[in-house]
């Protein structure tokens, strides 16, 4: 087990290195740079050139890369050109928003997926199963952005039940109850919108997993032991079918990353996804590269987490 984790971590290192290289070269390839937006006829272009020089933008790419990665390794992603502050501080401001959004989404996802998946798998071919399957069927086909837009419109605008932007009401003091409540209130609609779509595959997976396991021979063994239906489900079927779901936990994180970009953009929620889109259009490369790298690392950690979870819960893997 430890071997596996260690090996996985060892594989991660070149992965992260490659990722950083890719990210960096990509940023270099983008047209324009942080100073492009600064078109001001009264500024001498020479002054801008001086700035470029000072920012190292005129060095050969590998020198720039080396500088960048060396600092990045120490957690220093440089300055955001646009926000005039260290990228890490900037991300620090946003990361908690995205973190809580993602966290709430995950919680909702599982809160929805597990009961629905169980009902639908256990009582398959009943009306409740058909209802749930109907939902997953539609949800599977509905693109997140359309669904989120509709949710925003209905609950945000039309009924005005939820805020339609921001992460917290202005003027509240961090740490107070009303601040936390307001934060929660702001992320409720985006998180729910994302969860309702994201949960679909989990529900489907859980359902088919349960149906699958229902027919496994060890379930027959349990029945032959005289275990009641509920015991058969709770002790044998659910344990086995929740296992892959637990293992997917890490990968869910990967899925969330794409989702947060769309969701944050639609709900004007100031998180890392929104920061990413803004920074892309403003060519704030230090932020873009840092974000991609961080999200990439999050994905890598997510898959590592999945492997670890799987290893922890599945004895067949643990043994190795």
């Amino acid at each position, binding site marked *: 087990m430890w071997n596996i984790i260690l090996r996985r971590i060892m594989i991660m290192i070149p992965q992260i290195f490659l990722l950083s290289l890719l990210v960096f070269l990509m940023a270099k390839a983008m*047209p324009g740079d942080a100073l492009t937006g600064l078109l001001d006829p009264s500024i001498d272009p020479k002054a801008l050139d001086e700035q470029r020089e000072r920012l190292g933008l005129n060095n050969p790419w590998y020198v720039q890369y080396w500088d960048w990665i060396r600092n990045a390794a120490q957690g220093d992603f440089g300055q955001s050109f646009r926000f005039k502050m260290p990228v890490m501080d900037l991300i620090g*401001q946003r990361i908690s928003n995205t973190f809580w959004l993602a966290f709430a989404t995950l919680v909702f996802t599982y809160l929805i997926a597990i009961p629905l998946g169980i009902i639908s798998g256990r009582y398959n071919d009943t009306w409740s199963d058909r209802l749930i399957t109907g939902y997953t069927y539609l949800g599977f086909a509905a693109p997140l952005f359309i669904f989120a837009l509709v949710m925003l419109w209905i609950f945000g605008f039309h009924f005005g039940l939820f805020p*339609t932007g921001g992460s917290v009401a202005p003027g509240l003091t961090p740490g107070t109850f009303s601040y936390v409540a307001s934060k929660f209130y702001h992320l409720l609609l985006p998180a729910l919108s994302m969860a309702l779509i994201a949960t679909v595959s989990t529900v489907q997976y859980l359902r088919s997993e349960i149906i699958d396991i229902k027919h496994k021979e060890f379930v027959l063994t349990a029945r032959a032991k005289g275990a009641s239906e509920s015991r058969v489900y709770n002790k044998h079927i659910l344990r086995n079918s929740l296992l892959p779901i637990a293992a997917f936990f890490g990968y869910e994180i990967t899925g969330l990353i794409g989702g947060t970009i769309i969701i944050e953009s639609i709900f004007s929620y100031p998180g890392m996804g929104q920061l990413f889109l803004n920074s892309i259009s403003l060519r704030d490369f230090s932020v873009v590269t840092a974000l991609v790298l961080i999200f990439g690392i999050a994905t890598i950690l997510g898959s590592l987490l999945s492997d670890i979870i799987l290893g922890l819960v599945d004895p067949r893997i643990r043994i190795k």
Partner: protein
Amino acid sequence: ACSEKEAATPTPSTNTGDTKTEEKPANEEGVYSIDDFNNVKTNEGTAIEGGSITFGLVSDTAFEGTLNYNFYSGDPDVQVLGWFDEGLLTWDKDYVYTNDGAATYETSEDGKTFTLTIRDNVNWHDGKPVTAEDLQFAYEVIGNKAYDGPRYDSNFTSVVGMDEYHAGKAKTISGIKVLSEKQISITYKESTPSLLTGGVWTYPLAKHIFGDMDVAKMSSSKEVRETPIGFGPFKVETITPGESVTFVKNEDYWRGAPKLDKVTLKVINPTTVVQELKSGGVDLVDAFPTDQYKDNADMSNVEFLGAIDRAYTYIGFKLGTWDEANGKVVTNPDAKMADKNLRKAMWMAVDNDQVGKRFYNGLRWNATTLIPPSHPEFHDSNNPGVAYDPEAAKALLDEAGYKLDGEFRTNPDGSPLEINFVSMTGGDTAEPLARYYVQSWAAIGLKVNLEMVEFNSFYDRVGNTGKDDPNIDVYQAAWGVGIDVDPAGLYGRDALYNFSRFSSEKNDELLAKGVSAEAFDVEKRKEIYNEWQQYMVDEVPVFPTLYRAVVAPVNKRVMNYAIGDGTGIYLNDLAVNADKPVVAE
């Protein structure tokens, strides 16, 4: 020369505000005119004591949070800054410095030295007086090599001794002298009328706070980002980075304590602005998305204010290249677009009047010259520009030798003529508008290929870095215009941003005259600029397409509010006549 929002800044071809009014739309339904708007809110009822308002900063991005005039770079930050800080000088509606600001000024005989005297009761929010040294300090910081903001521009380089200071050869700036605690003089290398219109940097930097700080660290310091300080009517209370700021009144404000107790500023997405306004979630916004105006013109709980924006959209023709070594425009007489008849015909071919009415409901309108009506003194309203007349355009082309060969015209030498047109993406109308131009040109027989390019690539290729993309013949862009009317930064021979790369002796001469000593006489200056405007209409290196309006809805309960420059209404007067915003029916 510029300050605050005076710099000519590229404006994405759409967005930004325009205007309307409740009263009579023009002859056609859904078409409005800037003339029908007021820029000052009509007061109703009587103001209550105190009260608070919410100001919506309409933006789909967060504000950067560089909350100091000496460091900020984005427009959203200015919207925040305006509430709690200000410059020492104010200007009138013609953008000439006045003496009703926090300081008064005098010009020396030769017009090169400015002496500013700060009023005694002007104090920072922490109670310390705003001093001459604070202003000097601002110059020293911005002129420092390590300074990382975008302010080091002609406002500074034209100060005597600044070059030496910037290069590190001098410890102090010889042209700046602190005469007393509240008095300072600044000497410029040359006297130009531009100095009077925003050419002097008047934003002090609190030396007692920033004095010991490393210049390179200032812009990201806590004192800029988290606990910003100013001497404006309100004080910053809390900041949620990128999202919102709350202000409380500055009892010690030099014009007198503000009427309002509290102001909340929050960023609202353009998509939710209507909702917020209707529900009273915000009382006012900086600018209302023009494209939403038509559908909301009759919003019952607000009054829409309107003003002419200091900006215009234009179409440019690539006539040369940039010589990087010498920092000069090199005009190429053999360029594809070198024939001014061709250019003029292209101007004639487009019906900007209809474009303004249809796409912008009249909130953008046909532009005539390169000095927009936001500068009423210098905009030549008698110059009609070039009128829409496709038939005349065809005739002109025929005459110039661009013969029709089938559907499209050829060059005079018979070779096929294909014009590459590049326009920026962004906003709903960008693409149809560009396409409309292409259609219009096709209608007079010109084959124009359209390429839509995103902002950054656009400026990269148009010549932002001096490397012009030779495949671009025509482009559409926009400029925000500085407070100073001098167009040399955009059309001068040594201006990198002269993207058309047009140059001529006549042009050089006119631009030089516009800032010469004789131009201190406003009438004379007008004359010079009228001539320049006509010259550009004749030469058509670029042609303006649209002027634009800003519209700002204001909740009916708000009193003493105005948009635009030189209104004489200040934020400390701002008041409300009711506790709660009026809500739309």
